[in-house]
């Protein structure tokens, strides 16, 4: 007899893989936003330092 529970377990694994893939894409998007923000923050900080030197 086919082990249906083995199939169910596999189906749950597949859901996790699918979810992890989607989250991975989301995290890349998040990291891109953070990188952009940190770039602006760095620029602002450099300007601040320059101003303090003048």
């Amino acid at each position, binding site marked *: 007899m086919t082990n249906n*529970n083995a199939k169910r377990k596999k*189906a749950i694994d597949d*859901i996790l893989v*699918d979810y992890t893939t989607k989250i991975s894409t989301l995290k890349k998007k998040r990291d891109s*936003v953070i990188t952009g923000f940190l770039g602006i*923050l760095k620029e*602002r*900080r450099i300007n601040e330092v320059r101003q303090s030197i003048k």
Partner: protein
Amino acid sequence: MENSTPERKVAGGEIALRSPETTTIENVEVSNEKVLEHAADTKRQIEEQVAEVLSEAEQKIAISAKSMNVSPEMLDEMSKEKEVDGEVVSMWSEAKELARKAAQDIDTVVEGVLITPESYLQENDKGQLPPTPEEREIYKQWRAGHPENYTQSKTEVVSQSIEEFSNMVANFEATYPLEELLAITELTPPDYEHPLRDLAKKALNPIFAKLNALKNETNIPSEKYEELKRQWKVLSNAVGLVNKGMVDHTR
């Protein structure tokens, strides 16, 4: 076993009916309990991934800001100006929604284990049933032909299951003191193991399975179900979710 196995004509042919005991034995390779445990573990992993979307963002920003020697005021001001927090929270919400759908999909898979003819529950009450729809239908018909064995009412089944759930919660609390679990706030890499927490985490699985069974297999009133769910949440939060070595007891 063969003497007690009833037969019934299905789709033009005679097939042997399996009693629940036979089904369980034949299906021993991956038991129903294992499937339910796996479902609960997977849901927890998904929840942990949701939490990471937010916590990793906070960490990345905090570490970079520190390395650039940015003052907290400037960081706060810039965060508001660029609405970066809002964007991250929006992605976190998206992750939560994806998690909700994944959990629903898992519930659907688990339903194959949990959905049983009501009469079967009355006898077995372990959420075990013939694994395929065809076998379930056959089993249901066989049960319909033997009503004398199944006289328990639906309400009695619910009451009995609720009592069992409450006993499971009480046993859990007696075995794994919640105060001690809540006091575990940090775990050491690389395994993040803790003897008490690890055992408690495993012990949560059958309670979760029972809660799911109550929801999916009985006509439990929604208020009562929510009350039991809150009891479950207290236990689940006491075990907590691990994120970067920190145990979060609030989700």
